[in-house]
């Protein structure tokens, strides 16, 4: 009993010892757990209160995504509502990149059989885009027509790994007819980014989404108007990038549809005639400066920019089809400048219109050995101003030019858009050269000599103009001095056009005398354009010009021989300018055919055809 009790007491003592140890250890564990709880709560405080702002921004960056909403690019119409530039959906089929190549080939072959496109071409197309699309999930392998696209959408359930995609492409239904003045779209490059007119000042994220801009012509000049305003959409996405919901939407403003002043019927007709020539034709409404047709040959298909091969071919073409000769081509005005020189003579009272002057075969200057020949070997004889313009006497204008002096010539001609921009709504128009003493000294570093005054007064030498400048000048002649800025867009739209200007007011009779002389060019038998133009059913006033490309030898006998041996490249440019009808001018025309020979030849012939066409419609 005693032993039992001892054992029991022993156990009890053990129990008490255990109890003490157990309680203290439990207490220590509790302290540890509470410490852990405190550390965790402090960590939460650290993240959720102290670093809340920073982490919330990171969270927003994760979940919010900004998507651009593309505006619909404005279409371009001609003055009668024909579509010149349009947006079209282009359908393409894309195949999943993850498939093995064998499987891809099989699928492409199968679809090509069903839809009827060439399997080999599709493979080529696929290989072309494979590298470009390797970061995407799919690669395009064929472009479909609308019918094929509709056909495919009917059987699309059979091909889980192929999807029908579309993109909007800019198309030009008239192809090469107005390619130069319409321009085209291209990827934004570094040069475009510097162009302040192209982008709004604050380059926001949305602005950075602009991928294509107009590269030339109207597409370039009115790019922002046509492009419209990008919208954006802020959406919430999940970790996979899938849209969950909209947060904020700002709709895009579609681009403005532009109506051009171009009459595509005339443009088309002109283009057909000159598309294989190196030529430029400008047809301009003299009353308001609207360009009815502006064509440059050789022309090219505007839709070619989608293929690199075609573009390279254009770049390498020696005839320079990409050059818009109407605004960028520089030509000596040649005899076409003579009415203006005569006008300068009349206004400055150096010249009297009725006074007869003997125009021999050549003109000489004191102390200058060189003889300044007329184009006509035997000269024109005793002529007044009227005849001098109609027959295009060089010697008469050598004399007049000498008497006027280069300073007066330059200051008078500078009132017309010679040597400066006409202000047409096209990008990067060439300014040409209106020579003067200062110009020569600055550019060439030599002093002006009188001989140069003589050749300037017949529109040769340093003098260079663009066909558009000539057209503007001719229409101002028809308007008795009002210089109207040429425009491609009708004025009633939200487009700002530069206002017209006036040359100084001169006596009405002077203008009429010049116009009459130009009328004689086509109406009098001695006029240079009489043969072609006399049969015209409308009255007009015109002037021919023959621009020399190279300096010819002085003696007339050898000159003929040299001319015959000249290669085509150095043949004269054929120029004809006119406004019609003579009494009540409506339209001005400038036709320049490079290496076309005599001005009374091809340029006049073509101009007659163009004017005939014009009067058929108006």
């Amino acid at each position: 009993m005693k032993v039992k009790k001892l054992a029991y007491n022993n156990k009890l003592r053990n129990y008490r010892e255990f109890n003490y140890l157990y309680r203290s250890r439990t207490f220590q564990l509790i302290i540890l757990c509470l410490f852990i709880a405190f550390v965790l709560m402090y960590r939460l405080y650290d993240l959720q209160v102290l670093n809340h702002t920073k982490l919330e921004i990171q969270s927003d960056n994760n979940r919010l995504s900004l998507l651009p909403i593309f505006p619909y690019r404005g279409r371009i119409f001609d003055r009668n509502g024909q579509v010149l530039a349009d947006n079209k959906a282009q359908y393409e089929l894309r195949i999943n990149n993850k498939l093995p190549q064998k499987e891809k080939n099989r699928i492409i072959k199968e679809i090509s059989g069903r839809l009827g496109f060439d399997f080999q071409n599709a493979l080529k197309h696929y290989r072309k885009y494979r590298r470009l699309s390797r970061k995407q999930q799919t690669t395009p392998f064929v472009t479909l027509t609308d019918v094929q696209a509709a056909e495919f959408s009917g059987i699309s359930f059979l091909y889980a790994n192929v999807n029908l995609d579309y993109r909007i492409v800019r198309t030009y239904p008239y192809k090469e007819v107005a390619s130069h003045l319409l321009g085209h779209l291209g990827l934004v490059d570094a040069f475009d980014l510097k162009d302040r007119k192209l982008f709004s000042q604050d380059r926001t994220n949305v602005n950075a989404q602009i991928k294509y801009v107009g590269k030339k012509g109207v597409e370039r000049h009115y790019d922002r108007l046509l492009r419209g305003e990008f919208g954006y959409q802020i959406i919430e996405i999940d970790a996979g990038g899938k849209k969950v919901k909209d947060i904020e939407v700002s709709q895009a403003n579609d681009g403005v549809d532009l109506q051009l002043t171009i009459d595509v019927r005339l443009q088309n007709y002109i283009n057909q005639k000159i598309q294989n020539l190196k030529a430029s034709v400008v047809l301009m409404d003299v009353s308001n400066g609207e360009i009815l047709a502006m064509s440059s040959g050789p022309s090219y298909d505007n839709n070619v920019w989608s293929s690199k091969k075609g573009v390279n071919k254009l770049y390498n073409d020696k005839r320079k089809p990409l050059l818009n000769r109407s605004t960028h081509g520089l030509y000596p005005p040649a005899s076409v400048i003579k009415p203006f020189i005569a006008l300068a003579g009349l206004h400055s009272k150096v010249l009297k219109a009725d006074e007869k002057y003997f125009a021999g075969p050549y003109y000489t200057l004191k102390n200058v050995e060189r003889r300044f020949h007329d184009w006509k070997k035997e000269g024109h004889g005793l002529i007044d101003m009227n005849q001098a313009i109609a027959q295009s006497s060089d010697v008469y204008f050598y004399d007049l030019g000498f008497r006027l002096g280069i300073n007066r010539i330059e200051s008078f001609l500078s009132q017309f858009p010679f040597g400066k921009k006409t202000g047409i709504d096209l990008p990067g128009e060439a300014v040409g050269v209106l020579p003067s003493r200062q110009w020569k000294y600055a550019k060439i570093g030599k002093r002006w000599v009188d001989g140069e005054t003589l050749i300037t007064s017949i529109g040769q030498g340093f003098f260079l103009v663009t066909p558009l400048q000539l057209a503007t000048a001719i229409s101002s002649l028809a308007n008795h001095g009002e210089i109207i800025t040429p425009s491609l867009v009708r004025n009633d739209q939200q487009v700002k056009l530069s206002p017209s200007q006036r040359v100084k007011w001169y006596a009405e009779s002077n203008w009429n005398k010049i116009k009459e002389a130009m009328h004689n060019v086509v109406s009098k038998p001695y006029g240079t354009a009489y043969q072609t133009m006399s049969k015209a059913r409308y009255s007009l006033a015109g002037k021919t010009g023959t621009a020399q490309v190279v300096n010819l030898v002085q003696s007339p006998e050898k000159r003929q021989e040299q001319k015959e041996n000249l290669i085509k490249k150095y043949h004269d440019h054929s120029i004809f300018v006119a406004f019609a009808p003579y009494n009540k001018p409506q339209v001005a025309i400038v036709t320049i055919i490079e290496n076309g020979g005599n001005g009374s030849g091809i340029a006049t012939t073509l101009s007659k055809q163009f004017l005939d066409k014009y009067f058929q419609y108006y």
Partner: protein
Amino acid sequence: MGIKNNNTKSYVAPELVSKGRVWGFRIDPYLTLFFFVFFIISIFLIYNPNSSLELYKRQALNYGISLIFFVIISQIPSNFVKLLAPYLYLLGIIMLVIVLLFGVEGKGAQRWIDFGILNIQPSEFFKFLLPLMLAWWFNLADDNGFNKWLNWIVVAIFIITAVLMIAVQPDLGSALMVLVSGLIVIFLVGLPWKVIIISMACMALSFPILWSNMYSYQKQRVLTFLDPYKDPLGFGYHVIQSTIAIGSGGLFGRGWLQGSQSRLDFVPEQHTDFIFSIVAEEYGFIGGTALILLYVALMWRGLIISLNSQTHFLRILGVALSVVIFFYVGVNIAMVTGLLPVVGLPLPLISYGGSSLITYAIILGILSSIKCHSPDTAKIKY
């Protein structure tokens, strides 16, 4: 004998026994309350209208199964549990062997046994099996007065067997946590402080050896823990996204279902291991703290039950299990908040997943059983 009877009577507190009944079952009402509170929280967090998976329904089913386990275990008298302890432990070890031989592979490790309708992860059960076994052993050693050192050696064998077998699956996270649960028991029965300090020093010294034996993905996890931004889209992604989620919650949170980080899948495993990021993102600092305090309260209830229980075995087991639950909570939240490297441990009673939930239901059941059967066992012992 009369003394014992008197003693016993003085220990019996009838009101406690009667209070330990819910709907006629012997269950602790507080633990039952906790169980249902966690059930509601879990369902609210797992519910996601954007997902077509409807995980919350399956979680409700898991809770239903767990409730059955909870109630049944609670009905077993705790002395019976003591009798079963070595056999359960042996069963657990056998299951680990089966896992190694026939286990299903998942996430680069063999952790599962496929039973057709449900997969079982035996390492889960060692959360309570090891404390159970150790408590049983200490009780046995205490009763029979075993040699102290022999005692420690046997304990070490128990622990090391379990830990190693889990570690080679490989599941280092679970192995470490099982080790910790073993250590808690040892600490509780009075492992001398000097032994604790010496062994900690040894562990620190053996770290290089451990490091060289680690798998490369384990090394990566530790490295990215030190600097998650080293690999923001790879191993560091989990931690970065979950800290963003927690931080964006702020003081009051974004509101239910408004947590973009977790609801929109930026935080991976947001229903399982990283579910705490939803709590912190949608309910803010207030909600996160409240949840931690709720776990403290749960532990507190477990401790109260244990301290009021009558035998060495039950007291050790009860405290160990209560503390083990809280340790799992602590490690999970520390992992989600970027304080510890990412180890695949779910948040007790809230994370989606049947295996883990059933385990914690069993632990709660054991605690409840300690509470509801304690007085009777006291009658037998003293």
